[in-house]
């Protein structure tokens, strides 16, 4: 099954609004998976709604956002673990996914070595296992039981497992949790290397804004909906960024110093900065600063504020430098 059909109660089409055409429009022939106006509802509450984006071959897309903003939900929907309640998810046929979930506890009663974990969902050659383990730096732990690994080692083992099967799409839900700072940089470097070598698409969930800057093609900020999106590339290549690498806070500010221009109320409605209330929250509903407020600067590629979507969607993915 390569496609999840739109549900009958899908949200009204907003294709007429120019600011909304960016997601699917950028999903060219290379798109591995495309989410269109996806919403997930649980117990009468929308966890996420109106989510539009795609991941193409060779592209790294990073989802960021506060706790409970629907990052994991969105990623699970993209790979078919959760089914959308509205909108649709299109996948290419035979899409091979490698998935590292956010939480994974393996019961002690299950004897599982790192080596055995590698072939959990499909057979692999010994050389492929060894390669994946050495690229994540845990070849020496091949015979260790997974329950005895430290948090960081376990995270590496999960990443090794996901990449060993040479997926088309790698989905990593906070892959560096429990990894120390230098290990974190090494792992993100590895993720970039995997992308460059295999050309797979990567959907990354991160709370680490400074690393987002370094590796990502597209950052999508979620807060129950797509707050904003953009490329951190220009900023990350600037000399200021290079000099500041390692100073977390400064980089975080450099990329995503945006105020949320609205508040999600407990009853599910949305209070906007202009004082209005709406039932749902969509960037093009006319209540968002992105559409109405006078910009305090010119939006271009180097501003990196994420509000320059209209410009970005004119840029072909291939034209963006990926040094």
């Amino acid at each position, binding site marked *: 099954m390569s496609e999840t059909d739109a549900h009958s109660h899908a949200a009204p089409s907003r294709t007429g609004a120019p600011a909304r055409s960016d997601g699917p429009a950028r999903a060219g022939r290379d798109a591995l998976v495309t989410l269109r106006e996806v919403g997930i509802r649980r117990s009468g509450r929308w966890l996420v709604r109106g989510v539009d984006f795609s991941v193409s071959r060779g592209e790294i897309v990073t989802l960021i956002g506060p706790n409970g903003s629907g990052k994991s939900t969105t990623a699970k929907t993209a790979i078919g673990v959760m089914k959308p309640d509205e909108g649709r998810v299109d996948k290419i046929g035979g899409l091979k996914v490698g998935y590292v979930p956010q939480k994974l506890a393996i*019961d002690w009663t299950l004897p599982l070595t790192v080596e055995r974990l590698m072939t*959990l969902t499909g057979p692999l050659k010994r050389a492929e296992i060894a390669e994946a383990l050495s690229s994540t730096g845990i070849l020496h732990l091949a015979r260790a039981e997974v329950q005895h690994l430290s948090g960081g080692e376990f995270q590496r083992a999960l990443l090794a497992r996901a990449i060993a099967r040479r997926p088309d799409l790698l989905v990593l839900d906070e892959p560096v949790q429990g990894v120390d700072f230098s290990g974190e940089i090494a792992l993100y470097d590895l993720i970039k290397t995997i992308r460059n070598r295999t050309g797979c698409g990567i959907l990354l969930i991160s709370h680490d804004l400074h690393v987002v800057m370094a590796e990502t093609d597209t950052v999508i900020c979620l807060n129950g909906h797509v707050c904003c999106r953009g490329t951190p590339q220009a900023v990350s290549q600037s000399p200021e960024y290079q000099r500041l690498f390692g100073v977390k806070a400064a980089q975080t500010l450099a990329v995503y110093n945006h105020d949320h221009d609205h508040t999600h109320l407990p009853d599910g409605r949305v209070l906007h900065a202009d004082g209005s209330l709406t039932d749902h929250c969509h960037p093009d509903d006319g209540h968002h600063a992105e559409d109405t407020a006078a910009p305090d600067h010119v939006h271009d590629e180097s501003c990196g504020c994420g509000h320059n979507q209209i410009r970005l969607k004119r840029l072909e993915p291939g034209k963006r430098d990926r040094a």
Partner: protein
Amino acid sequence: MLDDFFIRALIAGVGLAITVGPLGCFVVWRRMAYFGDTMAHSALLGVALSLLLDLNLMVSVFIVAAMVSLLLLALQKRGGLSTDALLGILSHSALSIGLVIVAFMTWVRIDLVGFLFGDILAVSEADIDIVWGGGILVLMALVMLWRPLLASTVNPEIAEAEGLNPERSRLFFMLLMALVIAIAMKIVGILLITSLLIIPAATARRFSASPEIMAVFASLIGAVSVVGGLFGSLHFDTPSGPSIVVAALVIFVLSLLPIGRRSRDGTPYSPPEGHH
């Protein structure tokens, strides 16, 4: 010289133990002990319905156990009560409804103790065929299901994302459980089936470096328990079903003793150095 009925009991018991070993591992790994208990308890409802409707006993038990597991899946999806509470409701309700139905059928006299605790010494040659034939079927299905079932045991989301359909493997697993309960009821009885699933698997854990090895060890330990229990029951003139469970428990307790214990990374165990 051993009597024929004792030989038949040994053959049937060993066949059953080999079958339930790997399945028992999944019950332990998936933390489904109480679930297995519930399916087993519902077997008595199957017995009652088979008498009431004049159905084949094993078919009736299989169908009822499968229905109860499907009912549980449906109730879990609906949300609300915890799985724990749902199991408690289903388990004892099915058992009690079975007993009530039996009480209504005043024209039927059944050996309740035989159903609850098994009557392995009464197995016929036809029973042996069913145990071994059914056992081979269950093990073959388990070999074919092994990868998706193990993957969804570790994490259903990984299994789903990577195309292994955890829902389907769970459904097949429940059907296999229902089948094993139908086969095992006559040998160890409704109340003791779960112990034959769990105790050998729990014993095997300490000696196993991989899931596959643990499955094989669980079968072997189960077989040894059956042989030990049957000879024990012959020697001490004790009921056979409970004697098998006691034998399994003895092996489990022995396995806890720190004899030749190896530390968990596989190197020989060396006690930590004391402080001076």
